[in-house]
């Protein structure tokens, strides 16, 4: 590279290397500069804790959406976490390497399926089943939980597998030598040692579930209310933004960006916790 020389190359590479962090800052800057002034103007308490959302009359309370997002996400955990962790334990501790080699990429394909397709499956398959067997409109909190629970499986499984495989072999051998069965070894030794990584996988799954938009819009029904039962139609924070963004103006648009600010903060907190947990796992090694 005679044009710029070695030092020049290094400088150019370093500048491009800052692209990810500067994109992140730019995103934060623009979302916050659109949303934060609204929160101050309208009052954080009114915005976060009021129940009424009616842009036509200037009511912008997102409490029902916050509760809906929380319930949908927790429900998705109840569906996805046990299934995902069980799958991860099976694949890393009990399955033969060949099965692992085939099944792990197959499960990762679940992550590649577009979220609109999940939403569509929810509408065409899941919602009628719920409507006919349990009552209610079908498009509901429950449908959202099940679909999101499935969508987070790849995240939970692949990060849990990594952490279980990171547990040193000697731990397992020690336990087996003391006469424990393989299951006793798994649940008393291996899982305990891999705990922080498994927790990280669940938190990253939480982040994915709370941020998911299109699938939730399609299956959860979208009425603004605090859910009383799993069969109620709900609207999450993400759905609220996506549903109204195309026609919102003025205060209304600012309120949607403010909803984005809340979402951004929640996601950042979850991701920071997860990265600390993963760092703990790696530090232990």
């Amino acid at each position, binding site marked *: 590279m005679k044009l710029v020389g070695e030092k020049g190359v290094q400088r150019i590479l370093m500048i491009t290397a800052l*692209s990810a962090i500067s994109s992140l800052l730019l*995103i934060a800057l623009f979302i916050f500069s659109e949303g934060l002034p609204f929160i101050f103007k309208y009052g954080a308490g009114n915005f976060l804790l009021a129940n009424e959302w009616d842009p036509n009359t200037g009511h912008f309370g997102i409490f029902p959406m916050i509760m809906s997002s929380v319930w949908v996400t927790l429900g998705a955990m109840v569906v996805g976490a046990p299934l*995902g962790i069980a799958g991860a334990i*099976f694949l890393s501790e009990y399955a033969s390497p060949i099965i692992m080699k085939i099944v792990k990429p197959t499960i990762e*394909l679940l992550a590649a399926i577009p979220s609109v397709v999940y939403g*569509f*499956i929810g509408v065409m398959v899941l919602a009628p089943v719920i409507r006919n067997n349990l009552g209610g409109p079908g498009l509901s909190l429950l449908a959202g939980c099940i679909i999101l629970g499935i969508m987070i499986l790849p995240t939970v499984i692949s990060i849990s597998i990594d952490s279980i495989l990171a547990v040193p072999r000697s731990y397992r051998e020690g336990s087996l030598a003391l006469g424990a069965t393989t*299951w006793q070894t798994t649940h008393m030794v291996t899982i305990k040692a891999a705990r922080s990584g498994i927790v990280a996988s669940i938190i990253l799954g939480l982040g994915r579930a709370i941020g998911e938009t299109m699938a939730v819009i399609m299956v959860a029904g979208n009425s603004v209310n605090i859910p009383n039962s799993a069969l109620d139609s709900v609207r999450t924070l993400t759905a609220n933004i996506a549903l109204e963004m195309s026609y919102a103006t003025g205060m209304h648009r600012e309120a949607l960006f403010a909803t984005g600010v809340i979402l951004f903060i929640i996601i950042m907190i979850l991701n920071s916790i997860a990265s600390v947990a993963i760092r703990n796992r790696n530090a232990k090694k």
Partner: protein
Amino acid sequence: MRINPKYTQWGAVTILTSATIFTILILVFIIFFILEKGLPVLGLSFLTENPQEMGKAGGIFPTLIGTIILPVFALLIATPLGISTSVYLAEYTKETRITKVIRFGTDCLAGIPSIIFGLFGYIFFVITLGFGWSILSGGLTLAVMVLPTIIRTSEEAIRAVPNSYRKVSFSLGASRWQTVKKVVLPNALPGIVTGIMLSIGRSIGETAAVIFTAGSSLRIPSSVFDSTRTMAVHFYILAREGISSENAYGTAATLIIAVLFVNLLAYYTMHRFIAKRS
């Protein structure tokens, strides 16, 4: 009361196995359900005809164009940025405060939900920079979105190149940049390609970030300043507004086939790469 460890062992393994099988069955069900309903609609005319009455009849040709152009545009921007970031991280520095910040930024960016990218792309590219709903806005937004994937996979691929390769190159008098260009990058190429493929797959399936930045025009774009509609967006509109469930299934089948093809190609490339290394 104590249960015989043999029984708990048997019970646990049964539960774990069924959980795994259940997970795989979900995937198989989704793919077969969409293909079973969609494949009969899918045909050459469906792919090459223009949609009529907002997609109620006719084909999906313009969305096919949008689905190809937008990811290509995004990757044209994200690939050079991503690769040079990973070269910097893997070849030019030790772990310092700057690399920690870069890594933290990359991880955070990877965790941001697509609706936030949509909001950002809308306010920044569409409004502030005045690009409007266009291929330019949509492509730039997707580029930011896939950047972390490219950085991570490229860095892994570069780190997997054996150190002896570099030492030989240095001992022949090559500079660091010559070594990177002639030795490290060619050897890391399959891994880098895998990252690009995965990013294309993600861009093809993306909806929330695209609909607010590239818009949803059904016309065939004539420049990067024109709006376009991808298959995923088209499918979302067909399904959500109940325009035509038949064409929705057809579009979904095309989408699934495209995404699976790209991802399988990515796994195949990676597999070859790993096989070569070990």
